[in-house]
């Protein structure tokens, strides 16, 4: 049976904000597991999504950006899940100069794992608003 056209359209967005603390990363993993279960991902793919999201959160926590929270936004499509993980490198007002930070997203095992486990990964780095990691996994790839 052919899939109806509507099935190829965007399904929805799920947003989660967690404190930028190690004990909350497990909550992000659980949430991603629940969201990924809405799509026909394999068990292995869901494990990959959990690990990649946790690695992104861990990168935010260990970056010492001073961000108090991490935003996780999931764009759920019938054939893919896009996860955006963003911290906030901003401790004052918009008129303050940006905090210095070393962006080490291209380094380390964590980022290597993310790039290996996900189908598409990109970064948006803004010294004022923080770092955003966008990663996508497609079903059945």
């Amino acid at each position, binding site marked *: 049976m052919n899939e109806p056209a509507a099935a190829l359209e965007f399904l929805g967005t799920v947003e989660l904000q967690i404190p930028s603390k190690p004990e909350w990363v*497990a909550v992000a993993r659980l949430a991603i597991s629940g969201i990924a279960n809405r799509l026909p991902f394999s068990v292995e793919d869901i494990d990959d999504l959990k690990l990649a999201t946790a690695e992104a959160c*861990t990168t935010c926590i260990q970056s010492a950006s001073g961000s108090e929270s991490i935003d996780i936004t999931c764009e759920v499509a019938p054939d893919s899940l896009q996860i955006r993980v963003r911290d906030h490198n901003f401790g004052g007002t918009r008129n303050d100069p940006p905090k210095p930070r070393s962006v080490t997203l291209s380094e380390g*095992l964590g980022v290597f*794992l993310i790039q290996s486990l996900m189908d598409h990964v990109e970064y948006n780095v803004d010294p004022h608003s923080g770092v955003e990691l966008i990663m996508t996994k497609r079903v059945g790839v």
Partner: protein
Amino acid sequence: MDIKVQVRESDHDAYVVELGGEIDVYTSPKVKDAITELIDQGHYNLVINLEKVRYIDSTGLGVLIGGLKRVREHGGSVNLVCTNPQIKKIFDITGLVKIFGIYDDEQDAKKALT
């Protein structure tokens, strides 16, 4: 979320660190403390049993790598026990299969230390 760490002396002049649960940015310091304590006491041949570990991330891998580096400075070694395909996959992706001895069985891991 939990991590269980059990340390026991074994034969072949080895110590076994048996881990259970999830090793991530929150729980890995506890694993690091256990391994560091053993090394500080002069035990340089370690078997780390991951059979009851459901999840490990880069911080957990970092702890294992750190332990291996320290024991190698004293002529020691770290062997792992792991049969979980998802965890073995992570060691495979990161190339750590080449620096750790990874065994299906604790006895084999201990024997290989000597």
